[in-house]
């Protein structure tokens, strides 16, 4: 465990040493803030709805996370490959799995900071009305889970290339694809997709969290996808041995 923690600490510090963390953080806060207050127009408007709820935050935040989190993870392994520092890192007495987990944990640190900064929105709503606190807690648990899953997908993309831009674009495509496209593609392929298949998309898995319901199966779903991405990343690091 210890090397994972030591690696994560360095990654978090390196993230905040680079402008990317501040740009990604600012984009996240501004975009979620605007979407929270003004929505995409019409009835979404927080002021027009006249309802003390944080739900719009949980509806829009995953979209924004899917775009900004790959920018946080793109550097993690692609840069090590390009600079050659990967060779020193993987010849330390640590396993490839520990390296992937350390990198991911460091990025989760950024996610926690970014989510913590949005707490001003529920605080605001709490000050003017009586929203469902359970729903707020459930929503944040959901955002942490889906964000971690996005980060794991981004880390995986970063193990596939030396080029940060490529890592970002591939990570972005994976995140957006899993967030939105599974439903759309199912509908394209099948006229009436069976509801079991629809359950595979992030959106349907996240829906309960946004309503404030923390279902064990939804938690397990995101943890499973994260685990798969971590294993795929580890495999990708290991593949240097048989290339």
């Amino acid at each position: 465990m210890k090397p994972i923690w030591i690696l994560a600490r360095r990654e978090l510090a390196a993230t905040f040493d680079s402008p990317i963390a501040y740009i990604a953080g600012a984009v996240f806060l501004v975009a979620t803030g605007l979407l929270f207050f003004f929505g995409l127009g019409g009835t979404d408007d927080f002021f027009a709805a006249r309802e003390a709820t944080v739900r719009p935050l949980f509806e829009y935040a995953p979209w924004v996370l899917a775009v900004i989190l790959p920018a946080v993870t793109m550097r993690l392994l692609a840069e090590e490959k390009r600079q050659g520092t990967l060779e020193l890192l993987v010849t330390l007495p640590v396993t490839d799995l520990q390296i992937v987990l350390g990198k991911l944990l460091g990025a989760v640190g950024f996610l926690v900071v970014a989510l913590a900064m949005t707490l001003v929105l529920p605080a605001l709503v709490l000050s003017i009305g009586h929203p469902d606190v359970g729903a707020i807690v459930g929503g944040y648990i959901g955002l942490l889970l889906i964000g971690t899953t996005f980060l794991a997908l981004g880390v995986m993309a970063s193990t596939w290339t030396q080029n940060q831009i490529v890592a970002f674009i591939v990570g972005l495509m994976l995140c957006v694809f899993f967030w939105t496209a599974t439903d759309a593609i199912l509908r394209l392929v099948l006229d009436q997709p069976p509801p079991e298949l629809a359950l595979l998309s992030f959106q349907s898995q996240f829906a309960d969290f946004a309503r404030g319901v923390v279902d064990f199966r939804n938690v397990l779903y995101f943890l499973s996808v994260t685990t798969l991405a971590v294993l795929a990343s580890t495999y990708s690091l290991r593949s240097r041995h048989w290339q």
Partner: protein
Amino acid sequence: MTSAAMIQVRDLVKTYGDKNALSGVSFDARAGEILGLLGPNGAGKSTTMKILTTYLSATSGSVTVDGIDASSNPLAVRAMLGYLPESTPLYADMVVYDYLLWCGEMRGLAKADVIKRMADVARVVGLENVMGQVIGTLSKGYKQRVGLAQAMLHNPKILILDEPTSGLDPNQIIEIRNLIRSLGQNHTLILSSHNLTEVRQICDRVVIIHKGAVVADGTLDELEGRVASRHHLIVGVQTTDAHTQDAVKTLLAETPGAQAVTFSHTSQSPVPTAFFDVEADTDIRSALFERVRTAGLTLLELRRKSLDLEGIFQSLTQSL
């Protein structure tokens, strides 16, 4: 000085796709020895080192470090190694102090121990004045020292240094060579180089790799002895014109024992001199001297051409 083999490399084969990078490399490094891996660029030195450090796996063959098999127990082997890869990759945005502290902690050392070791290592490699600097702002020579410092931070039994002086200026090269020489007193050290002078200055023993195979393995004296059985002489005779040069060449060639005489070059200062390379199977220096003198010519130079490492290297790698 040397004892049992600290590192045993046996029949290493490494193929990248259909390209053979290594085709059966075997050698030993004994405890406390400085071993030089020598070879032209692309010979397989770096690949061998990447396998030794468990960065890559061999297609077949084995590496045993202090009795531990590297492929079945890579973490135990890595713990014994300090490694400086080619071109010294470092985290450019970190401060030297933080970087070394991080390396030590990643290797499982307690923070207090790392800080103590860092002070020692910084003194040995000469980093004391730049510990607070960002690595990216350092000169190449200082970066190399940071690379060496991270390699020896945990006081490993074995140091593996891939081209440790490449890209440095002449003064930095001398400093780093002296440093490596002093490290050899406490560590088993394997370094790669394509610089023969460097290997002569630093290494106890040399393994020459060429086209993915070991072509020579021994001390420098042994290798020189193997190639330098013939006598090579350089003869300089005072002469002013080309006609005399031809005559001198014939004169030298007719000396009993002389096998091949070739004209080398002329020099005009301080006096016009023609130089010849003479090969013989015995020592014919006194006979040559007599012949030149009785011909009424002035012998200005007569010396043995020591067959240097370049010569050994060429004769070993070109015959293949």
